[in-house]
């Protein structure tokens, strides 16, 4: 069924048809969230929130942009918000337990040294990218979304997206190469 007709029917009261949108976009949404969070369970939780947000705001979707672009944008925002909340919570925990953390600092550093697993290394490298570079990189790498659609999702020009992805890859390579040389 044509997507705009599907959305129209959902808004007219055929609520169960929303499941068709969930089926069509769940893979993309989960992969985008996972690209930011690096944890499939958390990614699925955030993806649930993405679809619920889309459901609540569906009446505001005017069809000026593609539904995919709209839901990718929600996915990026929800993932970044989730990361900010986690970061804030961690900072609060650190200030609340300053002594405890400083005691644990050594073991944390040791753990960091133990983190030789490649997955953690690459995740850390991605997390170290600037937010806009990370967003463009995740959208292109994890869901192979076209530069045009990434540009629409991020409200940027295609050339800006190309530049962001180029810089993201260069920085990622520098980070990884630096690590390999050290170890």
């Amino acid at each position, binding site marked *: 069924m044509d997507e705009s007709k599907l959305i129209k029917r959902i808004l007219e009261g055929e609520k169960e048809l929303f499941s068709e949108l*969930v*089926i069509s976009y769940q893979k993309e949404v989960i992969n985008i969230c996972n690209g930011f969070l690096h944890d499939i369970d958390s990614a699925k939780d955030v993806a*649930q929130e993405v679809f*619920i947000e889309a459901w609540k705001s569906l009446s505001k979707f005017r069809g000026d942009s593609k539904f995919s672009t709209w839901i990718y944008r929600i996915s990026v925002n929800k993932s970044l918000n989730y990361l900010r909340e986690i970061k804030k919570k961690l900072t609060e925990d650190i200030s609340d337990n300053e002594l405890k953390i400083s005691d644990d600092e050594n073991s944390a550093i040791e753990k960091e040294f133990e983190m030789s697993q490649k997955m953690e*290394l690459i995740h850390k490298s991605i997390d170290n990218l600037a937010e806009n570079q990370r967003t463009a990189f995740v959208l292109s790498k994890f869901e192979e979304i076209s530069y045009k659609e990434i540009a629409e999702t991020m409200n940027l020009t295609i050339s800006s997206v190309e530049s962001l992805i180029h810089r993201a890859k260069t920085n990622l390579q520098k980070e990884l190469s630096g690590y*390999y040389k050290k170890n």
Partner: protein
Amino acid sequence: MNCNDTQNKLIFYIDGELSKSESSEIENHLDRCNNCNILYQKLKIDLSILSSERIMEIDVNFTESVMQNIRNIESFKISNRQKTLNFLMPFAVAASIILIISVGILFGNMGTNKTSTQISGSESEVFYINDLEQESLEFNLINE
């Protein structure tokens, strides 16, 4: 191409984003340089991890879970609406009773006003007859 140039372009080479000539220059360098080749192999393996993390299949349980959440939200909205209605119902009944009583009083007053208008109308009629200086029945009887 030297080591530095090669290493700076490895990620783009792995992603297949270089021109044919650049790619063959890198390949030539990797054949000759063991250090760059090791770096290339490590980078290639690590970047392939990203692709392996992607989910490729649709999860029916995920869809059902989203739909169940939405149904819960909708039923919560309906129950909230019902609660509001239940809360407002006594006020609505009271307001209706007050309205009915007020309307009753208003109509009652209108009826009373109408009677007094009729009375004053007959008084003016009598006055009119008197204005014609007609003598009353009692006056005629006394005179007889």
